């Protein structure tokens, strides 16, 4: 166990796994019945896909991320996890993009049958601190608890069968701001195993009993003080390298007191209302439900699929639109994500992953939008007490 100078939570360390032994982790998980998913380079981005061997993982790639831009580039080294992240979080593994909730037969009467997902344990390798934070935020939406009277049995089934191999980030993308959201780059909780990538090995720790059991099957070597310090320093360096920072001070009042701020018109000029930000967001949970009837009309499937508050249908009521203009829809998204979420779930809906900035086709940066709304207030505070200068 190790505490850092900044008083960060301790990191549990079980030992070192040589990089060329990473395949043993994958094979151990597979032998235990897990379908194993990890990072793969596809169509110019890192996405999650099935992996059966460690040599399928992308080597020596970094993502270069900016507002509206994502490129994979060769790093020239043999590291596996410097890519930071791609468009996908863990969201689709728990909250399926599209699934049938139930089917119904019609034959004079109606008979409903729930269609819960098949229980198949899934292990995801490469989840980041922001992604774990995203899961913890979505748990509050979909699992029964203080903020929610009803568990979503589809989400809950997948949640119970998910094994997470997290990677503490030792590199940040330019759009990352998890440090300011207090969610990363160190994964604090919610993982089964966590890795920190060193030169030719991973520092490995368990975060659950299931994780400990898997680690017991791995050829771990003892970790020395030097390696532990090196790992902690690498994570701290990733945090320090982040240049973006979301100022969340008093953000509920800030946004809800500025619902008619001219900045909403300004951002509406740039926003295409495409919904990319909601799709890549680890916490956006909106979904719509539709029926798909069989051709013979005897059965219908009630499906849900991810929806976005940027679609016109989202606010449809009695043939009218509640949020007809883009300014209404962007305002809905941002005020919900950063402010209303706190009222609803006791936590921000933003985990600081920066995906909405990277994957916005016009490069809208929510931090800039918040700052633009905050700035006049800050200026007023700074100058407010002073008498006006005489001219």
């Amino acid at each position: 166990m190790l505490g850092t100078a900044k008083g960060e939570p301790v990191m549990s360390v079980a030992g070192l796994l040589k990089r060329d032994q990473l395949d043993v982790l994958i094979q151990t998980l597979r032998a235990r019945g897990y379908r194993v998913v990890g990072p793969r380079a596809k169509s110019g981005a890192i996405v999650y896909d099935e992996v059966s061997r460690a040599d399928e993982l992308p080597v020596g790639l970094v993502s270069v991320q900016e507002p509206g831009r994502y490129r994979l580039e060769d790093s020239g080294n043999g590291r596996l996890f410097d890519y930071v992240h791609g468009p996908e979080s863990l969201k689709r593994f728990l909250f399926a993009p599209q699934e049938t909730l139930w089917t119904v037969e019609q034959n004079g009467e109606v008979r409903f049958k729930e269609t819960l997902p098949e229980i198949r344990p899934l292990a995801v390798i490469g989840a980041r601190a922001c992604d774990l934070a995203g899961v913890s935020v979505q748990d509050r939406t979909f699992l029964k608890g203080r903020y929610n009277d009803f568990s979503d049995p589809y989400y809950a089934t997948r949640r119970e069968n998910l094994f997470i191999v997290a990677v503490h980030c030792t590199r940040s993308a330019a759009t990352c701001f998890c440090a300011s959201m207090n969610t990363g780059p160190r994964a604090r909780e919610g993982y089964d195993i966590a890795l920190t990538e060193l030169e030719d090995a991973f520092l490995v720790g368990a975060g659950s009993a299931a994780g400990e059991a898997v680690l017991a099957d791995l050829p771990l070597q003892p970790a020395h003080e030097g390696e532990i310090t090196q790992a902690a320093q690498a994570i701290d360096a990733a945090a320090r390298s982040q240049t973006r920072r979301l100022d969340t001070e008093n953000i509920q009042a800030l946004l809800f007191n500025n619902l008619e701020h001219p900045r909403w018109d300004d951002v509406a000029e740039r926003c295409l209302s495409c919904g990319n930000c909601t799709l890549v967001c680890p916490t956006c949970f909106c979904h719509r439900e539709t029926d798909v009837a069989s051709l013979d009309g005897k059965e219908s499937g009630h499906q849900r699929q991810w929806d976005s508050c940027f679609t016109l249908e989202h606010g449809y009521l009695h043939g009218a639109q509640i949020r007809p203009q883009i300014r209404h829809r962007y305002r809905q998204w941002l005020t919900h994500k950063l402010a209303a979420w706190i009222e609803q779930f006791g936590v921000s809906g933003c985990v600081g992953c920066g995906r909405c900035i990277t994957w916005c086709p016009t490069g809208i940066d929510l931090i800039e939008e918040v700052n633009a709304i905050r700035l006049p207030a800050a200026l007023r505070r700074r100058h407010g007490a002073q008498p006006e200068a005489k001219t």
Partner: protein
Amino acid sequence: MNAVAWSRNPYLPHAAQVVERVEEGRDIFTLRLRLSDAGARAAYRFQPGQFNMLYLYGVGEVAISIVSDPDDPGLIDHTIRAVGRVTQGLQRLKAGDALGLRGPFGRGWPVEAARGRSLLLITGGLGCAPTTSMIHYALQRRESYGALTLCHGVKHPGDLIYGERIQSWCAAPDTQVLLTADKGTPEWRGRVGQVTQTLEDIAPEMFKGVAMMCGPEPMMRAVAENLLRRGMAPADIYLSLERNMQCAVGHCGHCMFGGKFICKDGPVFSYTEVSALLAVKGL
């Protein structure tokens, strides 16, 4: 909330049957439903102001408030305007037809907070439907509530529904009904004008009780501002709101109103909770 006392899966409807279908007006009808499963029927209870999700086979679900008597939960009435795909399909159902029902959902009218106080109900158009079960509830516990006044406004006299029901309320003890239409006709015996104008003719004591409103949002804002001018406290003014709903349990995100989920935090809110939000367009 007992919605899921009889179902682990909050999204899964129960089979129900149309017992009776009543034409209320042009494109407005009431479906009287009965849950098909005896166990589900026995467990079903609702509070005035709650709603159900009705499922039309092969088409989808729609949120509809319950308009019947909470003391008789075996028969569940829903008054519906045929305006969208699901409601137009529901319009074609006949007695004996099958559909799905899940619920009840949401927070209804403040039956406890209003106990012992006078009740001022102000409704517009089809907004009279969600308050109906509250009226039934109060009239069956007449001694538990003070005087009851219903102010109901419609655009055209032909839009008025529940004629017989309203007549029976007029005859109830300590109960007053004021009807108004934006435009009158020679046959119209009610007032002519906006529903806010009916407030002029109400005994001042009514403004010391609890107000419950349902109707178009601009109407409810106008009424609330009027009631505040008459000295009512914002916390004594309640209103029922409506938004697109798909899940009814706070999971789908469609009914959000600022930080509120209308499906689970509402549909009934006190004016204190939502007045600032109601003033904003496009929220």
